[in-house]
């Protein structure tokens, strides 16, 4: 289909530009903040001469643009560099171990670290979104169909209640109730699928208020559209109108909300929730990387995140234009 081809060609090329720009900004920022990475790599006890030598060997004294070019060249071949800190076994090597000299080969590859962590995060995010949809769809649709009456108010109360709960507090309460008290589910770390459930619930509670509001508003707005009443007068049943037309039309603003807002919330939520639960995903990886100033990991995650954002927005826009042909692309 010509339209789809042109759409993706156009948007992918735009997307690549955006991701490269984001990568450049992050790359530069990480290199101008105080703190010499080589000191982090080699530890505080290393003699200055060794530092300089290793830094030159690693190319850390080249101009930023040169370094960036080299980095992007590597990224293009799938090489995201190597962690400053983490050893091949995954544990923190953290300076001081190889005072005598630094060999990059002894550190874990960033791509490898991300590849290990990503499936966990995807699983958590997927389950969280699924839980949120499970809650938000029935409540949101019921609220939208009966705007101004009790389901609408219930939806409003439920979402304002959820929105006012700090996720850290929700996490603690859920851990206490479901794990410590009732012993139903495990909570900290990861040894199996069951470890995903409580974190996913915390994530869902954070996401669902926005979804509930968005769904109910979109559904209610479509019930007010002329085509809804007209459809019923034309002889279609209410059920048909809602199932085939209202939900279809409501999907467009929902998709846009998902692309514009939810993805950001989801990424932010993942970081916090993974950290609370010591869940071994990308969030956890990033937060420890931040604490350890493990720049290669941070920049790789940031680039990955911008890539995901661009990709999701592209898919969302594509889906929207497929649903509603009036939209320009």
């Amino acid at each position: 289909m010509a339209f789809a081809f042109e759409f993706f060609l156009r948007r992918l090329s735009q997307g690549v530009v955006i991701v490269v720009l984001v990568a450049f900004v992050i790359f530069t920022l990480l290199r101008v903040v105080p703190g010499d990475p080589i000191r982090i790599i080699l530890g505080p006890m290393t003699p200055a001469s060794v530092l300089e030598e290793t830094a030159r060997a690693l190319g850390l004294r080249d101009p930023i643009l040169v370094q960036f070019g080299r980095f992007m060249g590597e990224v293009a071949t799938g090489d995201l560099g190597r962690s400053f800190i983490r050893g091949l076994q995954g544990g923190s090597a953290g300076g001081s171990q190889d005072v005598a000299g630094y060999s990059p080969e002894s550190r874990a590859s960033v791509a490898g670290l991300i590849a290990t962590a990503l499936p966990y995060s995807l699983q958590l995010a997927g389950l969280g979104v699924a839980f949120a949809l499970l809650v938000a769809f029935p409540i949101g649709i019921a609220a939208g169909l009966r705007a101004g009456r009790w389901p609408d108010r219930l939806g409003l109360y439920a979402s304002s209640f959820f929105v006012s709960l700090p996720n850290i507090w929700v996490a603690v309460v859920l851990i206490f109730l479901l794990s410590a008290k009732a012993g139903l589910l495990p909570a900290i770390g990861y040894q199996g699928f069951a470890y995903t459930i409580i974190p996913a619930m915390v994530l869902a509670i954070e996401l669902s208020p926005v979804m509930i509001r968005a769904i109910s508003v979109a559904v209610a707005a479509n019930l007010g559209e002329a085509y809804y009443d007209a459809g019923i007068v034309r002889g279609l049943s209410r059920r048909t109108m809602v199932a085939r037309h209202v939900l279809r039309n409501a999907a467009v603003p929902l998709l846009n909300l998902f692309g514009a807002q939810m993805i950001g919330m989801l990424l932010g939520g993942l970081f916090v929730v993974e950290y609370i639960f010591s869940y071994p995903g990308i969030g956890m990886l990033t937060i420890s990387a931040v604490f350890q100033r493990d720049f290669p990991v941070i920049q790789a995650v940031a680039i990955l995140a911008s890539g995901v954002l661009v990709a999701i927005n592209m898919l969302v826009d594509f889906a929207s234009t497929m649903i509603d042909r009036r939209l320009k692309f």
Partner: protein
Amino acid sequence: MALGSPPVPRPEAPLMEVRGLSVAVQTASGPRPVLEGVSLTVAPRAVLGIIGESGSGKTVLSRALVNWIRPPLAVTAGTVRYGGEDLLALPEARMAALRGREIAYIGANPTSALDPTVPVGHQLVEKLCAVLPGTARRDARARVVATLDAVRIPSPAKRFEEYPFQFSGGMMQRALIVDALVSNPRLLIADNITQPLDVTVAAQILRLLRELQKEFATAVVFISSALGIVSEIADDVIVLDRGRVVEERPTGALLRSPEHAYTRELIAKVPRIWSGAARPPPPADTDVVLDVRDVERTYEVRDRSAIFATRRVRAVRGVSFTVRRGENFAIIGESGCGKSTLSRLLSCLEAPDRGQILFQGTDIATLGGRDLLALRRRFQLLLQDPYNAIAAHSAIGATIAEPLRIHGLVPRRHLRARVAEVMAEVGLAPALYDQLPAGLSAGQRQRVNIARALVLEPEMLILDETLSALDQVEQAKLLDLFERLQTRRGISYVYISHDLAMVRRVSARIAVMYLGRIVELSGNHALFARASHPYTRALLSAVPTVEDKPYPTATYLLEGEPPDPIDIPPGCSFRTRCPFAFGRCATDDPALLATGPDGVGRACHRDADDLPAVVPPAAGQGGGARQAEGAEAP
């Protein structure tokens, strides 16, 4: 075909009987009646017209007939009997079984009646399968395509897959007529179905509805605010005035000898194009204020069916005309003819791709910054929509003063006095100065807009459908106002409109546009009495009036819709629909030939004398007022 429907009424027994129907709207200060004691009878296979002005409750009545009264409206008394049952007392499920099956309804807004995200054909199939359970989708599809073809929708199989926004209003209304009649209903309620349509399209729709009504033997309740339209189709007419039936007569008798004062008023209000005495156009100076030379505007739209392809929409193609000081110039044409694009070009909102627009000798496209601002002051555009143009949160006085402040023309301390002066001039009470626009009527809002334009003391006003949304009375008042301003200040007006009656009333010269081009440019009287382009005649033949027309509909009524401005046929662009096209029209594009000293002309290969002779309006019904011809000729 009736499936599980209520007992079939005996032949010739009334199909629907409304007795003492009252509907009220719940307001903060208690219920206010909308309909009061309405009674009417619909005979099988008959067309009952209901005529009323806006606010007469006719749409509420049409909805009550399908039991579609929703809060804040409520039925307070009366019955709507159909097939021995009172529809108003019917449980929702039984009513749902009647709607769309036995009783069909078509509303005034064809373009918003279907889900915008689903192809039109699919929605028609959906309805067909819903009302005739057991229809195989493939059969349903074949049947829908066949009926789309039967109502003369071009390439129906392709249109089947297109979305509502790709349909023009007229095509959509055809599709909805198909949709309504596909279940072979006994009764069709048509609420103002021609209202949003252009006159030639509305005339086609009326003819189609009449044909189908005969063919399917459907009874029709036809609701409209235009007497000229109702009288074309209805057997009997009911006149509704503020929620009450004031007169009910066979159509011919009603027009000939209206009994109720309100009916007489209504008939008198129908604008006359040929029989009323048009006032002589105000004498125009000889100096040219606006000189439009061969302007073109093409838009590029992206093409979904090919890669990196765009299609060129040729909205305005080589338009030239001049407007003199103090002249009333009008541009008429139907939707898609390019008049809105032209208005954007004239008002400097866009620049033409080619050609020049000279305002008092300066090319407005070359202006920028300060000069453009200075020009905008002398050159004001007034749009149709009186609602969105006014900020809701600022006081009326401040709104009117805003342009003065932007242009910095009047010292702050004189501002109020200046605004008050203009408000008085356009007929806004001085007390409104500090009020918010919330309570204003459409007419008053339009006055605020006019005042906003007038504070700048412009030399030319471009009125793009400015008065279309207003009722006759308001319109007439504002036209008087424009005329007064013209005598006092020598303003030139460019009316851009589809309203032929209004144009007939006010303008001195008229340009008729079709497909981005002026096809005829002529003086007011000459154009209406001796139109010399086939399209102009088609346009005039389609105007709904209660008078005799010099251009019989049967001779001139057009088929189909204007071609897409993307694929303009070679040769004369009107050729595809022109009843008088001949060999040369397919190859040569006729230029607008200026045949007179006034820059009047027509773009047609056929000699005006070759077209059928103009039937002079017979001095038939309506009396002697008809023969204004000699009196007003310049």
